[in-house]
């Protein structure tokens, strides 16, 4: 055994094999006496406690504060539910039944942002009358989004 050789243990390692010894002496990192201490080798086990409720980095809901249209400004944050289906992320605004999908949450939010911008102008087009449900959606949209004057 080469006593002068420093041994660096990986985190979680309980033993290490002395590589310069053909007979494989197992050294115990916790022991002061590292010469010839036999130790049954076992793979390092690392336990990371996972809170099931927060197992995913993706939140269940987000507040949208911008719309992908420079003519529009969000005056009241839009609450979006976030879910996943068939490998796609879906963001939806329950109050208006509007939604968007994407490969990631960022993609889905970007899509939603575009969708909601288009819808704002569609529903605020005075030349086309709206039924009561779309009028309700328009009113909710106008509560959350306003048009800005670009000079």
């Amino acid at each position, binding site marked *: 055994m080469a006593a002068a050789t420093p041994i660096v243990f990986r985190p979680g390692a309980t033993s290490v094999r002395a590589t310069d010894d053909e007979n494989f002496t197992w050294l115990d990192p916790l022991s002061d006496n590292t010469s010839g201490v036999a130790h049954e080798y076992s793979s390092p086990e690392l336990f990371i406690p996972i809170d099931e409720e927060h197992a995913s980095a993706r939140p269940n809901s987000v507040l949208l504060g911008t719309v992908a249209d420079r003519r529009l400004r969000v005056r009241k944050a839009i609450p979006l539910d976030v879910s996943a289906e068939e490998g796609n992320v879906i963001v939806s605004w329950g109050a208006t*039944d509007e939604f968007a999908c994407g490969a990631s949450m960022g993609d889905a939010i970007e899509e939603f942002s575009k969708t909601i911008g*288009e819808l704002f102008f*569609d529903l605020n087009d005075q030349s086309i*009358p709206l*039924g*009561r*449900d779309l009028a309700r959606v328009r009113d909710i949209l106008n509560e959350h989004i306003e048009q800005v004057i670009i000079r």
Partner: protein
Amino acid sequence: MKAHEFETIVKKLHMETRDSKHRIAYFVHNGVRIVKTMRSHGNSKFIPEHLIRKQLHLDQAQFVGLYSCSINEPEYIEILKSKGVIAADAIKAAEGR
């Protein structure tokens, strides 16, 4: 749902469509926009069936009926009337025009 199933519904209900960043479809009755739905462009894009169904104000059986064969446009109008999506006063106003 598949893009072609979405398109089947759009054609069946004679919805007005507009292609921009998305494919937007409006169900128009007596000149009034009643219902709006949309999908992303591209045949392989994911379309969440339950959210489209909600936008169309249909339950599961009615929705399946719509993209199979059992529900047609007049029946869809009746469903919307029964749910108050097409308002009775709006119907009278349209008939009076």
